[in-house]
């Protein structure tokens, strides 16, 4: 027994540094691309590299965005890091519902990659394209009490750190809705109306950032990036964008709202 106590730490010193992969738990080769998971798990990730629909970022043909007579869209486009495959559903579930906050680092890195792709895509058209402020979809206080954290906010703050863009809370959730994951499409769209609202402090906040921008960009539109974990119908992000759009009208400055979500379902 005592012998073991001496040998174990020595063995650990001499052995190569291996650690468990976060998602599959095996001790295999670490991935060089993303910290924390093994190579096999990294290869399993269903990245959306080429969005087929330029509006909602879907990786397959999109019947939603070609539908006429739909609700007005207040955001320019959505891009997502991955498709919502069963494996991705498991990862998000572990983070959001189980509460394993180690996953936040992983998800933030994946979102960071997606943001880089999005930025490059837009810089083709406009070399000066850049996001001014990052915000997130808020969660109701009841849900916040229950879960203990707002996953979208954690992701947004992480991306803000990675991309050196300021993060601000710009939207307030007024009404508590039941879990979106339990509703069908039309219910989701309907319930999301009037869930969010603006705030006078927010207008000040945006105003401050506007003023602090570089002189050369004084006439370019104010770009906001809204971050959430999943994009399903786009109703959530649309409601948030509507509120932000209203704020833009009050300020009298052109505004462009973009959406970046971790998964596209």
């Amino acid at each position: 027994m005592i012998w073991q106590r001496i040998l174990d730490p020595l063995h650990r010193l001499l052995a190569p540094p291996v650690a468990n992969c976060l998602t599959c738990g095996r001790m295999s080769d670490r991935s060089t691309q993303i910290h924390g998971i093994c190579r096999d798990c990294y290869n399993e990730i269903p990245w959306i590299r080429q969005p087929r629909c330029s509006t909602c970022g879907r990786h397959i043909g999109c019947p939603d965005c070609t539908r006429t007579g739909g609700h007005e869209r207040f955001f320019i486009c959505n891009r997502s890091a991955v498709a919502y495959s069963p494996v991705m559903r498991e990862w998000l579930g572990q983070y959001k519902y189980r509460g394993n906050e180690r996953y936040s680092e992983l998800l933030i890195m994946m979102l960071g990659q997606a943001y880089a792709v999005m930025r490059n895509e837009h810089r083709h058209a406009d070399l000066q394209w850049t996001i001014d402020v990052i915000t997130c979809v808020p969660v109701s206080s009841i849900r916040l009490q229950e879960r203990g954290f707002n996953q979208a906010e954690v992701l947004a703050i992480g991306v803000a750190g990675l991309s050196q863009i300021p993060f601000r809370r710009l939207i307030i959730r007024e009404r508590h809705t039941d879990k979106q994951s339990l509703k069908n499409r039309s219910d989701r769209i309907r319930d999301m109306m009037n869930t969010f609202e603006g705030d006078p402090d927010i207008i000040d906040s945006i105003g401050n950032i506007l003023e602090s921008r570089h002189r050369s960009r004084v006439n370019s539109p104010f770009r906001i990036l809204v971050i959430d974990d999943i994009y399903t119908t786009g109703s959530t992000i649309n409601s948030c964008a509507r509120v932000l759009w209203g704020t833009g009208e009050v300020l009298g400055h052109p505004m462009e709202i973009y959406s970046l979500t971790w998964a596209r379902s």
Partner: protein
Amino acid sequence: MKSTVYVIRNAGIWEIRISLDIRVDLLWWAKVSSDPLCRMVLLAKDIPLGWALKMEQWDVQVRGMDSWNVHQWKQYAIGALQEELAEEAKFNSNRSCISEKSMWIWQVKGESNVTRCLDVHSQTKMVQEQRNMELGSSMVAGELRGNSMKGRERIEQVNEQRLSEEKVQALWDSSGKDAGRGRKAGDLRQGGVMQALISEANELARVLQGRSLLAAEVDGLLAEAAPSLAGTWFTAAQLAYLQGQLVLGAGVAPAASPDRGASWQRGRKIPRCRRCGSVALGRTACATCGSAACAYCEACLAMGRSRACTLLLRGAAQPAVRGTAGGSPTEAMGRWGLSAAQSAAAGAALRFLAKPPAGGGAMPMHASQSRGGVQQKAGASETLSTSNVSRPSPSSSFFPNTWAYLGRVRRNRYVSVPSTPDRFLLWAVTGAGKTEMIFPLLASILEARGRVLVATPRKDVVLELAPRLARAFPDERIVTLYGGSEERWRSGTMTLTTTHQLMRFYQNFDLVIIDEIDAFPFHNDPMLAYAAQNACKPDGKFVYLSATPPHQLQREASRGILPHAKVPVRFHGHPLPVPSRLDMKSVAHCLQQRRIPLKLLHNLERSIKRGAQLFVFVSRIRHIEPFVVLLRHYIPGIRIEGTSSVDPKRSEKVVAFRDTQIRLLITTTILERGVTVPRSDVFILDADSGLFDEASLIQMAGRAGRSKDDPAGNVFLASAHWTSSQKGAISQIKKMNRIAQKGGYLTRDPMNR
């Protein structure tokens, strides 16, 4: 969650208490207190639960506390929470939950000395009025400086008192409609409401007896067991806590680590999960309690998140019952149909159960008593439980009872006399009928109106045992628990569960029987050992069942520290088949060459010719399919299949194998335990693989020769090298056969191989 924390002066001593609903405490102390100077000071209305519980453990005695004002109390509280506030600062959060605005000091008017109190009160009132008049006149004089420093203090005191009373009054008024989340609405001061609350508290305590649940799990439990309480049980919980029927704790709390590390390190407390015993490493900003460094446990996430601010409720501990000794072994034989060897072992176990607990603890403190290399954390459960557990003295466990060594009766040779028992090992070989052997043990405790628990490592074993137990004990209420079981919240006298579910119990069982103690996952997971430990009452008993106990236990048994009984012979009275060795290249080699060595082939064909079923064990799942193809090529004419843990059709194949539709089944260690197939031979390929340890080899070998009609199955260990695990396995099997022979248990001459 956030909870309230207050200080109460009772019987001359100040104590810090937490509260989930301060109204209950206001009424409680009014009823209970006999101290005329009884006072309650609300320190904080909403602070993280973990902080509140820590403050509760503080010894509060500072001179002059009796006359402190709100500000001084605030300073004291901040001082008490130095460490926590420092942690918060590290995470750049400056939120302080202690503000003078929400604090108040309340004179508790005890009902027992109402008149005296009133006098005091009216006296102070008169004095106050006098002072007011004095002040009034001096104000008229227009001077408030100089000696009216004292006057100002008095004014402050009076103001403070008035403010406090207003706050408390506001509390009562607002709680009529809505008392906050989880709390019972209504004016508790009214008799009717109070009565309802008392019965609710009793109900809650009854439902929670023996359980250890997080707040979210309590919601689930109440939804099923007591729906009227759901959503508003905080108030009832607070009352039950004050009465002593419930113990409140946090999911994760700092605990001192005992043995390891140098003495200066021992003082530092690391956060440990109270539910599963593992160190809680995750720290995160938590909106539920407002802390920026709320620790949570990652090991038991699958059962709900256990955080520093999650409320953990436990029923108060109950004393254990002692089993009846159960009479003579022949009685056991008769009633339960046990063989001679089985009933001798069962008899020893019954005597163990009937003994009073020595040393009082089912929590071994000494390093040598840890099972399977796991350190037990003694201090962890002590701070939560209210019972006083005395530690067993290490010396008495080291000297076995010398009487056992002298003058042994032949039959008792392999049954040691217990010395300081909490645990008992039933070492029964494969096929000895372990399940039947525990029936008399269960019966003895159940007859004494105790509660028993049978824990097994896997869900399918649970599902297999449940009907057998139900048949043997038709009058008892049996609860089967496993992940996803519908009986999650039921309670009964006999519980059959997988080891993970043990985390939801606390000091509930008089007898805990742990089956297959060496099997995955129990053996490797200290979390489950901790859970099993806590599920048993401190003066209850453990019984371990296994054919291949871990080396640690084997050593303890042979040294006499661990009382045990061996059952060296199978139920049908025939010896265990001793494996023979086949020298053969590795399976990977065979697959590469696409050839099967002749030696192996001959033995396979011989077994098939004698009409036996063949188990072929390989070490890796990826070998199975190619090997199936290869064998089918060599041995046409019989149905050959392969299965493993990733095979969805596994259960069907096992059934078909048992029905002899499949004659040869290639498999991994998934089938090493629990499977009984009559007339079978066993071939273990790659027996030198590191994945097959001694216990595994013995278990696999134990698949052969289980039925009465064919007790002499053949077992072959095929490998390229002769390893110590193979040697150990064969030697243990031979030893058991020898013991059986000497004990006269064999019905026939053993076939010496």
